[in-house]
């Protein structure tokens, strides 16, 4: 994976599946024999990681949806952490 920037277009990593679970009232990340429960912010970011949208676009979209500002550095930090965990991947 190349180094991360706001132009990076992350997608859910191979072997992982993102899914909304009504019973748990949160997004979860499923992988072989395991599950990560995502908090609200992580779910908002990850559900937008489709390999098409850039980190910048994802941050802007969340800002617009929740009438917030200045989320880009938070989104970048999450994507960096998620990349290390292989939850997210990019070219």
């Amino acid at each position, binding site marked *: 994976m190349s180094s991360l920037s706001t132009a990076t277009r992350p997608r859910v990593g*191979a*072997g992982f*599946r993102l899914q909304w*679970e*009504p019973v*748990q009232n949160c997004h979860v990340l*499923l992988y072989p*024999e395991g599950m990560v429960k995502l908090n609200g912010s992580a779910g908002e970011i990850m559900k937008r990681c489709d390999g098409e949208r850039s980190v910048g676009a994802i941050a802007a979209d969340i800002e617009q949806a929740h009438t917030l500002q200045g989320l880009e550095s938070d989104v970048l930090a999450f994507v960096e952490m998620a990349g290390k965990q292989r939850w997210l991947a990019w070219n």
Partner: protein
Amino acid sequence: MSLDAPAVGPPLWLLAELTYRCPLHCVFCYNPVDFARQQDELSTDDWLRVLRQGRELGAVQLGLSGGEPLVRDDLEVIVAEARSLGYYTNLLTSGVGLTVARAAALKAAGLEHVQLSFQDSTQEMNDFLSHTKTFDLKSRVAKIIKDQDWPMVMNVVIHRMNIDHIDRIIAMAVDLGAEYLELANTQYYSWAYLNRDQLLPTHEQLRLAEETTLAWRAKLGDRMRIFFVAPDYHEGRAKKCVNGWGNMFLTVAPDGTALPCHTAKMLPGLSFPSVREHSLRDIWFDSEGFNRYRGTGWMKEPCSSCEFREQDLGGCRCQAFMLANDPAAADPVCVKSPHHGLVTDAVARAGAIAPGAVREQPLIFRNPGNSIRLGAAVPAAPSIG
């Protein structure tokens, strides 16, 4: 429900033991010793109903296990339904029966992960321990799994007779391209319990194996992750068995019996409902079998006043029954258990015998003949009510 009882969460993990039929005869198998007496398997429709009910309760991980699940010719139908319901589908297999064509069909049905079990890294030891010629086949199957782009977890059950080969086992897993390697020390239930004296490693063997594993971890970094499942007999600490009784784990046995863990059927004085007669919701929330050992209210001393009672929940009920003859006792692997001497004695016996020494007692292979013979000696659990 009383106000002080914690709310019961969903059964996140559904383990579907599709069949007890298996081409292998592993001496450490945890299937019931009398498996051959339980031949009335659930139908395809039964399983599809169980899957739907499980998903409604919030189950997300589905393990398809056995026996060897590939002997069910409706496996693809079951996988397809599971995937469309939203389960993450895991196939736990010996690899026997996984042809290129079958792998492609399972992939098309939506199967997401295959866990391949190996008995050891050398053909001689592998064939001996599983009692069939399967090692070459598993190497081929590992390639089939990689070719389908499935993440591969390789599982090797570790015991006295293969623990000294752990360096080669890890090297083999790397060569075959596994993403994860699970080195699972034998848990002593069912067939493994019958063969315990031959399978328990010594403390020294275990120390060396952990040292070797640490060295490989440092060398491999992110390339392959190695899980070393510590043996509770040697640790002196009880494990939080199935992450707590009726907490997140629900097994359905081949005949439809619903269980909080795959060996719980051995416990006396408890009846477990069948999915043929009850919904998973009733079973999970309201059955006596699932409620009996939930939480900490059932505990006796030394568990009930123990500072670790929430962390290990008293350990394993089956082990307490097998070793202390009381399913509500502290798990005897715990140093605080009054029965802990039984465990240290067993480990000491293993240490007193030279590795590789010929044993007077032969290994008992898991096969239908032995199952019928030994199953007759197992008293049926009296049911209550």
